[in-house]
Structure formats: C-alpha cells, structure tokens
C-alpha cells in the first residue's frame, strides 16, 4: 500500500540521499521537512531538492518548512497520512555547544515523538543516531539501550538523550534507533562532500600542522560511506523488519584500527610529491595527558590554523582513548549478505581524493 514517509533534515547530507533512495526503491509519497526561516529560504531549498532529486520527484514529494524548535513544527503535515518517519535532522558537529545540542537534538526529537503519537497509521519511527551515543564505554558495545556512562562531548550526550526520548515511547510507537558510523566519503569512489573530524585530522597531518597522534592505536574506528548508510537505513525502514536498535557499521572483524588507518593515510600522503618534498614525519602516538597539554598549548596559538583545526578535532579525539567494538548482529540478521565498504580501501581512496581536491578547495564534481 502506498504510504507517506516524512524525512526531517531532508536537505541534509543524509536526508537528501535517503529521499533519493526512497524515490528510487519505493512508492511512498515523501514529505521533505526542512528548516526554513521564511518563504524565500523554503523556495530556495525546494529548488535545490528539485535539482538533486530530479523532475520525476515532483509528483511524489512535498517540501515543508519544519523548525523542530517550535511546537507546531509539522503543523502542515496531516498525521493520518504518515506511515513512516525518518528523523535525520540534527546538529552533528562534535564541538556543538550543549545548549544548541539540547535545543535541536534533544528537544527537537521530543517534539517529533509528540507528532508521531498523533500518526495513527505509523509503521516506523526511525531516529538516526550515532554509534558514539555509547559515550565513554569501552569494549564490546551491543545494539541495546544505553545507560548514561558519561560522554566526551555534547554531541554524543545529545544523541544519547534524543535516543532516550524515542525509546521511552517504544512501547507505544514502532521505534527504531539507527546508530550510524563516521561517514568519510559519499561512496566507494572516495569523494567527500561533507567534512568532519576524520578529514580535519588528516588535513592537520598532511599540512604538517600536527605531529602527535591522539589515541590508542588499537582503537577500532567504524567508518562507512553515505551510500552504504543510506542503503542500510532504507532497508531498516521496511515495516517487515523488526523495530529496534541497530548499529549500521561494518562487522567488528572488518573494522580498521586507528593505527591501520594512519598507516594507509600516510602511505597515500607519501606518494604525493608535494608531501614528499616537505619531508613530514608520521605522527607520534601520544597519551591522553600529552594530548591535553597539546590542546592547552594550541589554545594560545589563536587565529592560526592549528588552533582552528584542533578545535574541531579535539572533541572527538578523546574517543580514541576508549577502544570499543560495535556489534552489529541485529543489522546482519535484518540484512543478510550486506556488504560494508572495506575500511582500508575506503580510507585509501578517500585520502587520494582529499589530496586531489586539497580538502575541497579545488572543485570536485557535484554530488
């Protein structure tokens, strides 16, 4: 039966890919909820989505303004028609301030849950979260509800708190929490259109601005592409698949360690003539106290690129001292035969593209 899927954050990095995938692989109508301060911004976002999704999407999509900081955020959407909701709207910066993280990620999710309770035909409420809602845990991390064990940044905390908002309603609503890995490329080509702590850290190394490596080299890092993640989320939206908590990530055995990722990154860097000329050394692993000292020292280098880049990297770097392995048994059961990208190959192609584009400063093709 043809239903209606609401996607919040539909113009975001993952939101727009999910919209495209659902248009291709399903027959639902889509309500694309975007944040827009006024009619002009809404029209601009509508136009951008039209371009991205193609003219064939016009008959099946409706773009609505939805500011989840307001109680009437989805007032333009008829709840009776809604069969699925994908909550992709969030502030995803690791260095987000606590108040902003609370307002957008936590309170926004609470408002969406309230809307979902009015959707009498709802078959799935899927919240996109992060593996790092696990916070300061280490060791094996199962696909289950987390206790509060502390967090290394406000982003992690806010996603955990947002999970709590929807999981509290799991008895009444068909809730799924989909915890995502670190997305380092759009797809297996290694093209990058959204930069995060992974890319910024490599940028510091490539440009010789950092020669210390924070973290325990054995720490596994779950990396994936937007394409893989989109496929997984699309699959898990199928009402035939049980609701629940899923880790969308490679199998533990196929997850590269920090040490392996640095090795492949520098192997790529060292093939670059410009990098060779500068004779930059591989970074020295450093303990947490030393990294804290480095951050403290870098705080005095105001206005310089080290300070700017480290400020985006440091809120995540503490996780590198908390080795954890994300189990994905539920994902594998729900998606037999799934194939996550090979992490080393993905890191290699991504590094090649990062050098080619100089971290986005040189134009690359439109995604």
């Amino acid at each position, binding site marked *: 039966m043809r239903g209606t899927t609401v996607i919040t954050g539909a113009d975001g990095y993952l939101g727009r890919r999910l919209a495209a995938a659902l248009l291709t692989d399903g027959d639902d109508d889509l309500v694309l909820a975007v944040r827009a301060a006024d009619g002009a911004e809404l029209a601009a976002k509508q136009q951008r989505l039209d371009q991205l999704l193609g003219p064939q999407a016009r008959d099946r999509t409706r773009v609505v303004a939805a500011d989840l900081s307001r109680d009437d955020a989805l007032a333009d959407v008829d709840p009776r028609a809604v069969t699925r909701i994908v909550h992709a709207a969030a502030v995803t910066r690791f260095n987000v301030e606590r108040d902003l993280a609370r307002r957008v990620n936590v309170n926004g999710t609470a408002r969406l849950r309230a809307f979902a309770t009015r959707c009498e035909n709802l078959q799935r409420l899927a919240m996109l979260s992060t593996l790092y809602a696990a916070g300061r845990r280490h060791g094996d991390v199962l696909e289950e509800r987390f206790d509060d064990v502390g967090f290394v940044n406000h982003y992690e905390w806010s996603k955990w708190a947002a999970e709590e908002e929807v999981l509290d309603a799991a008895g009444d609503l068909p809730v799924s929490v989909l915890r995502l890995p670190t997305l380092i490329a759009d797809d297996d080509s290694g093209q990058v259109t959204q930069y995060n702590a992974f890319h910024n850290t490599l940028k510091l190394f490539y*440009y010789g601005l950092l020669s210390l490596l924070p973290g325990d080299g054995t720490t596994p890092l779950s990396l994936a592409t937007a394409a893989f993640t989109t496929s997984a989320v699309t699959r898990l939206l199928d009402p035939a698949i049980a609701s629940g908590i899923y880790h969308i990530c490679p199998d533990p055995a196929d997850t590269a360690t920090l040490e392996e990722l640095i090795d492949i990154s520098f192997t790529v860097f060292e093939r670059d003539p410009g990098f060779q000329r*500068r004779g930059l050394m591989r970074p020295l692993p450093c303990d947490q106290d030393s990294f804290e*000292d480095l951050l403290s*020292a870098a705080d*005095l280098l*105001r206005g*310089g690129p*080290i300070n700017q880049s480290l400020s985006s990297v440091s809120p995540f770097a503490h996780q590198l001292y908390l080795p954890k392995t994300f189990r994905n048994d539920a994902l594998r059961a729900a998606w037999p035969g799934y194939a996550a990208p090979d992490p080393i190959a993905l890191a290699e192609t991504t590094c090649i593209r990062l050098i080619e584009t100089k971290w986005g400063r040189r134009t690359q093709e439109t995604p």
Partner: protein
Amino acid sequence: MTDVFVDSFVYSLGERKIHVNETAAAGRLISSARDLESAGFRWHHVCEPTTSAYDLAKEVTGQLAESGRLGDVDAIVYATCLPLNGNAGDPAQWERTKDVKYLMDFPASRLQADFGLHKAVVIGLNQQACTAMLGSVRLAHALLQVEADWNRVLCVTADRFPEGAKYEQAYNLISDGAAACVVSRQQAAFRLVTAHQITNGGLGQAGDDETVGSYFAYTHRLVRETLERAGLAAADLDWVVTQNTNDKAWQILARLLGVGFEKVFFSSMPDVGHVISADNVVNLAELLATGRVRPGQRIALIMAGFGLNWQCLILEATEAVAAARD
C-alpha cells in the same frame, strides 16, 4: 677519536629589559601578551638602537678574556641566526657607494683583531638559525678531529633583531643576545659525547604553525637518533637543557621520550624569553649555577630552528665541572 671538551659558557643580553605587556602595547608582537604569558614568557631583552649584534659578540668574548678563559684560540666559529648579523658593516655605506665590500665586514674578523687572536682562523655559520650555537660546537669538534695542531676553538653566536622587527617568532618572545663557549682538547667541564643534526629543507619556508606542528615528531627523532649515536638510552640522561619555548612543549616531549620532567631545565625562560641561538647556553649557565650538576652526569642540549634545523649535543660532566660553576 680524540676526546673534545666544552666549557666557559657565557652570555650577554640586550640592554633593555622589557615586559611582554609593554612590547605588546608597542605593537611589536604577533600574539597577545596574555597568550605569551600563558606560554611562560614574561620579560625579554632588546638592544638599544646603537647596539649591534657584534657589540654583543664582543661583550661575551670580553667576559672570557677578562676571566682568563679565552686563551690561545686556533679558530673562531662565529654563528648568527639572521644572516644579516653576519655583516658588521654599515648598510648606509653600501647604499651610498654600492660597493659590496660594505656587505662583507665580517664580525668574526673583527673579533679576531679586537681580541688579538692573531693565530685564529675564522669560520662563519649563518644558515642554521637558532641551532647555530650547537652547530658551531659540532663543527669545532669536527675541526679538532682533523686539525692535529689545533687545541682550542672559540664558538660565538650573536644576534639582534633589526630595528622595527616584531619580537616574536613561531609564538616565542624573542630577546637579542649572544653566547660563547670554548671547545678544546684539554680536559674541561664537559666532554662532548656526541652531536647530531637534522635538516629538512622542504620546510625551509615553513609558516609558524608548520614549525610548531613539526616540532614534536622531529625533536623526538632528533633525541632518539642522538642517543643511538651515543649508545645511550633516554634514562641515561640526567638533564635536558632546552630552548625557551612554550612550557607545555617539553611536558609533552618529556613524556614521549620517557624523560622525567624534573630533568628538563629551561629556568631562564620567564626572564629572558627565547634568546635566539643562545638559549641552551643561558640555561646551561643557570643549571651550573645551581650546583646540581655532578661529574659523570649527562646533559642533552636541544634546539630547533628555521631551515628547518634540529640539533642536539650530549655533554658529560667531568671532575672539572665544579670549577666551571665557580
């Protein structure tokens, strides 16, 4: 290989002692005074407009002469961080006459004449930046290995920033200053165990942040390789005498190297800032003055500079170290 010894560490600073706040107010810093203070800097020393780098070199050489430690010198290795300090001539004369001899008024030659060191030959060293003092000791050591009839080499470094310059480089508060020491075959306060240098010309035009960024990996490598050359381990070092830079830097490096931070010595930093290539001598002189250096102890002197260059000496205190303190 002939044993070579080093001692007679002396230094001189620009006459005007200025607080970092005053320099900031005068617009002669890049960072804020608060940031430099947080990094451990307080005061620095600036030459009067009429004082030249050569005047500073004369001052330190004069200290050696007056105390009877200059002696019969076979060579002078005269090091400058800034190449322009390798010319003691009057730039106005060059501008007026366009005669390049005014660009070749070598301070080492002047020093030889002014102190009557007629036997000494002179060697200029001006492309090792802040590492040049350590480089001059290394060079003196090498010369004494091959010049069989040489006994003593005077190493001098002297720099002042040009008028109007910012007194900050790579986030360090700079002082004008000079230092000297004597390298000889005769037993003296320290035996030179080994010397080592790394140059990475690929970073020759590195910006301040690249200089800072490469500091840890290269300094770590420098010390590791120096220890390997000497057949020593980090635990064999009793003291690490560093350049005056952000005080967090050596807290980090000490951990990475496995050296207790209590062995790291850069006590002069709040009072003098980064005295270009004289930092190690200033700090070593202060360490000696504490009376804590005992015969048999090993001291690493470590410096990074533009070029980019990194240099390290390992010295071993002899029985004569007590006399050097006095």
